[in-house]
């Protein structure tokens, strides 16, 4: 599905540059359900933005399918995002003046699907996330969990092969988080690759595999737990 090799990313902060991703190397197979964990500031969001072609990287290679994604033109990047990738954000990022249905339908607008057709399809996706009766409501009239469901329906409507979710449960209580994870598991079960950034071990435990980041480096499970004296002591 996707592969990163020796990806580096720097941020220019004033006069010095901040090395945010250091030789990041990993691979995600088709249909995997993967969590990316790490402390705050470890570079998780930066990594996810690169994977989502929302941001560039400075060196290394990022393969999405069998294409190298590197310094694409904006319109090319837009078209890849539109056709291959669905985004779910911590703060939902729904357009406040559009109804749930219109929000879900938006990616299809950029594919040139007619309004009628798009609303019809959007209604199906809303039904799938259990919000059929909320189609005509504005985001401001909905709970956090409901908003995130709308966002997930919107991420799915373009039939992406990859869903990228940056702390999708970060703003939700544990019960709602559980429901959202159920939904994402269901989606993964249909064959769509799902990557979730989280720092909630509960959430990570629902995935098949966890990639850990520390200070911009991918670390293996042992190294990661080494920072945790309790667990390290338990390892013989």
């Amino acid at each position: 599905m996707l592969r990163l090799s020796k990806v580096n990313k720097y941020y220019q902060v004033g006069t010095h540059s901040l090395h945010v991703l250091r030789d990041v190397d990993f691979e995600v197979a088709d249909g995997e359900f993967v969590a990316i964990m790490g402390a705050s500031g470890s570079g998780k969001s930066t990594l996810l933005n690169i994977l989502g072609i929302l941001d560039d990287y400075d060196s290394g290679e990022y393969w999405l399918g069998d294409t190298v994604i590197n310094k694409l033109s904006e319109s090319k990047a837009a078209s890849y995002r539109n056709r291959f990738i669905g985004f779910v954000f911590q703060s939902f990022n729904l357009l406040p003046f559009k109804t749930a249905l219109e929000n879900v339908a938006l990616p299809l607008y950029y594919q040139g699907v007619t309004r009628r057709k798009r609303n019809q399809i959007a209604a199906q996706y809303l039904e799938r996330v259990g919000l059929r009766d909320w189609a005509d409501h504005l985001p401001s009239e909905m709970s956090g969990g409901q908003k995130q469901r709308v966002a997930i329906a919107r991420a799915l409507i373009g039939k992406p092969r990859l869903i990228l979710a940056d702390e999708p449960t970060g703003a939700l209580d544990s019960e709602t988080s559980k429901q959202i994870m159920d939904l994402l598991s269901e989606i993964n079960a249909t064959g769509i690759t799902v990557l979730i950034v989280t720092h909630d071990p509960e959430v990570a435990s629902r995935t098949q595999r966890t990639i850990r980041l520390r200070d911009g480096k991918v670390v293996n499970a042992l190294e990661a737990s080494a920072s945790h004296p309790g667990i390290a002591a338990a390892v013989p």
Partner: protein
Amino acid sequence: MFDLDKWKEIWSTLRSNPLRTFLTAFGVFWGILMLMAMLGFGSAIQSGSQRQMKGMATNLLFVWGQQTTESYDGLPPGRGVRFNTADIELLRRLPSIEYLAPRLQLGGWMNNFTVSHESKNGTFTVMADYPELKHIVAFEYDAGRFINERDIAEQRKVVVIGRAVYEQLFEPGIDPINKHIKISGVYFQVVGLTRTLRGGNQGDRDANTLFVPFTTLKTAFNIGDRVGFFAMTAKPGTDGPELERQVREALSRHHRISPTDQLAIGSFNMFVMYSKFEMFFLVLQLVSWVVGGATLLAGVIGVSNIMLITVKERTKEIGVRKALGASPMSIVSMVMKESIVLTAFAGLIGVVAGVALLAGTGAILEHLPESPLGPPNVSLSTVLTAVAVLIGAGALAGVMPATHAASIKPIEALRAE
């Protein structure tokens, strides 16, 4: 372009902040209304003056004798210049003159005469004229005709009367043709009743004038060979100043006037007047466009400014749209369309309000024939130009905000909480 879907998308964003949309639209509305009001006012002044000048040839020249101011050819200054019938032959030989109308007012300039019919009488202007006059001052006839060549040749005692003369001397409904009226004791047969095409003072004067054949007046009142003044038109292709120069030269030589003595012969050159008028209206129109256009420009800058603020406020929205697959082009086109729709829509309302305003003013001015302002008419082409200008202005207003919107990076937008 005519995708209903896109319009709905534009409408939904414009509707999302009604107050801002309204304030933006108002600037453009006001701009175009001002522009139309200014153009309308200009055209009202213009049509008012044209109403005054209507029925007059535009290549017209009048000349009359005054007093010499320079000694010449052994003659002292201060000598009165009087034109006579010999001058008629002289001027008829000038190739630049199209129509020549020698004229003489009975009793002299500004003198009125008592005219009567049966028991009724009044005082009016009596003019001795040639048939050529009808090419210089256009009349219509409520009855009969103007003086003709036979009247001149046979020195017939016929008269053409103005509307006010008729109303004063005849009972309403009476046909004046072939009736006899008495001018200073001499009977004349009425052959025509004129209706002037001119407005204002000129029109009043026409209505109060009687015309008799030039040759008749001389014999009937024993006036000799005097000519009061000459009215003439220039041949097409001859300009007014050139005609005047030739006429002055011929008359000066004949009357032994110094070539440099401009005051010996008085003149009124319609051509020069008219081009001054035209210049004035051109300037007026230019000023209207500049002032109205500046107001409109202020409105457009307002649109641009507010669109830019809007785009900045919508950074997050634009980021989300881009993350979902909006290309930079689609963002540019979204902002441009919003700008054009807003400008054009507000502008069209302004155009409609402007047309209504002018039509209303026109209807009022219609009932005030003495007003120096005529009905304002803003032509369809002006309106269409204004609309085209508006759409262009909307596009112009959209350029900056649209390029800004397109340059927004999705991650930065998404980070903006």
